[in-house]
């Protein structure tokens, strides 16, 4: 118990340190930033080395927090934190669907590649290459395929495109993690299984899967983080309404006259990442009997 309390304490200290560094830099840093190589009298020349600290670039933390409790768009709109929470939950749900798809696909690919060496040779390079495709190029493609399917009669909601894009990012660490994990058991244990004349499925269930857990958990953690990032980016690039990504972009466009507003959805997306990581930690607790010496991701 004391160990977890110490961990929580360090977590709080970490957050406070970030806040302190922000305010300290804002207080001590140059308001217009530090530019090197600027030509006298020539606006926008040179290279900005240190960021600006003025209220537009770096609002005070208390201003950002206060903004959360002010009306979103003036008039009778609810305080900013309400749409932030709604949007974050929307994105979380989509990211979760994306993660589930990604885990299923990744798991099947990992199993296949572990079972058939030919599949590993054939698939692994493609799986690696798949991750080099820029998301902003891939996202509109998925969206337009989706809308074509939709027009052909099968309903294809926009969020499904976002979930597919999120899964595209999250399946990768899972596939690789499963492959490495299933290959993790020692030779000697595999030989034992063979002497018992146990078949593939029994070996998989009794030996390979339990042995894969230490590889699987970091893979899932990466997958969850990727799913959140993928969902936020995909929302923006295919223009899905209702999620945190679109909200961030919209409020950022008003950043000159209302600089604290875009920080609301920014906090929302941080919370999203924490919830996603926390969920995987819960999965880890459930599997704690198998977690001996976790591999690093």
């Amino acid at each position: 118990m004391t160990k977890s309390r110490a961990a929580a304490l360090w977590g709080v200290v970490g957050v406070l340190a970030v806040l302190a560094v922000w305010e300290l830099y804002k207080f001590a840093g140059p308001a217009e930033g530090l530019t090197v190589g600027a030509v006298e009298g020539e606006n926008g020349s040179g290279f900005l080395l240190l960021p600006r600290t003025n209220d537009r670039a770096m609002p005070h933390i208390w201003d950002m927090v206060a903004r959360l409790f002010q009306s979103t768009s003036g008039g009778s709109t609810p305080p900013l934190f309400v749409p932030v929470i709604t949007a974050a939950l929307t994105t979380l749900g989509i990211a979760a669907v994306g993660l589930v798809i990604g885990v299923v696909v990744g798991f099947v690919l990992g199993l296949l590649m572990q079972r058939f060496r030919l599949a590993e040779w054939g698939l692994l390079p493609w799986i690696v290459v798949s991750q080099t495709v820029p998301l902003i190029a891939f996202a509109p493609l998925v969206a337009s395929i989706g809308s074509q399917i939709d027009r052909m009669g099968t309903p294809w909601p926009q969020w499904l495109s976002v979930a597919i894009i999120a899964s595209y990012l999250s399946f990768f660490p899972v596939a690789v993690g499963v492959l490495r994990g299933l290959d993790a058991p020692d030779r000697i244990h595999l030989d034992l299984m063979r002497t018992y004349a146990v078949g593939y499925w029994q070996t998989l269930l009794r030996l390979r899967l339990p042995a894969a857990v230490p590889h699987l958990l970091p893979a899932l953690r990466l997958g969850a983080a990727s799913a959140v990032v993928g969902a936020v980016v995909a929302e923006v690039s295919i223009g899905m309404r209702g999620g945190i990504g679109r909200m961030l972009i919209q409020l950022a466009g008003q950043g000159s006259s209302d600089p604290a507003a875009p920080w609301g959805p920014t906090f929302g997306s941080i919370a999203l990442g924490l919830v996603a990581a926390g969920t995987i930690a819960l999965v880890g607790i459930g599997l704690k009997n198998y977690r001996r010496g976790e591999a690093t991701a």
Partner: protein
Amino acid sequence: MRHSIKRGITVASISVVTAITLGACASGGGTSPNASSGDFEPITDISLQLQWLPQAQFAGYYVALDKGYFEEEGFDNVDIIPSGGDIVPQDALVAGDVDFAVAWVPKVLGTLEATGAELTDIAQVYQKSGTLQVSFKDNPVADVSDFEGKRIGSWGFGNEWEIFAAMAADDLDASTVSITTQDFSMNALLDGDVDAAQAMTYNEYAQILETVNPATGELFTPDDFDVVSYEDTDGAMLQDAIWADTARLDDPAYADAAVRFLKAVTKGWLYARDNPEDAASITYDAAINAEAAFPVGPVHQLWQMNEVNKLIWTGDDFGVIDQAAWDKTVKGALVAVNQDGLNLITDEPADSAYSNEYIEKALAELADEDVDVSGDYTPIDVTLTEGGQ
């Protein structure tokens, strides 16, 4: 192992073939043949693609929706689809995703030439250009000729062609003017990253006037800025127009829908002209409720409504394309060369690129129905507040 892979491939190819066949059947069965009698079934469901987020720039459409003008013209379902820059309206229209689209004329001309697609401007909602180049008084860029040696902000995405057309008319090019991409806030100007920032009279210019001047502690005022209005330059181009699919206009049902759609839209904009406060709040309500968008506050929307009305109601008939303004737009589009040395268009657009047939028919029918389509807009005074809220 070999076997299982082979079998897998067979299964996969069978399912692909099945899917394609089923898909073909589905799309084949979707079209209903009723053009045989020469008569047509009126279209009752249409969609309109906007070029930006819901805001008073599009008040006429939201008012028409709210006030039931579309229903009066026989539409059961009208879907107004905003864009956050992710959807290019003319592309959505070419792809057949929507029935009509709102887009700037030069952007569409570029798309038409680049893709060979055919679209028709059936109503020129904005008669004047609302683009500005805004600079601080102490570092003035008061005229296009002042661009020389300056850093000029531009949004890109096809919003920049007036700048290059105006520069071309002044014999300036990218070798003497530095064009910098700016985002949709006004920070580039406020932080001194550009000497003059691009702004729309109805949106970004208001945003900067909703910002506190750190030197005085009060909001910036128009006196703090110098403004180049592209409307007054040779670079002026036609902006928000309603576009239809040229090929589909041969279909009497679609042509009929176009006229009815324009009638409803005209009524919407007439209402917005005569009731700017109400129209601004209808749009604002639609934006925050139905669209789950995050518009700038109500005061900003009222400012926008006021400015937009000034661009629409210039004393001429609503939506009718002025030949001279069209020609000026085409001329500007032909001479404009961007910072990468590229032209927007190299040939005159097809004659089908605009047509007054539909808007004139709509206005005539409205006049027959005793809707007063004439009249001017009397600007109101809008006092901006911090953040526009």
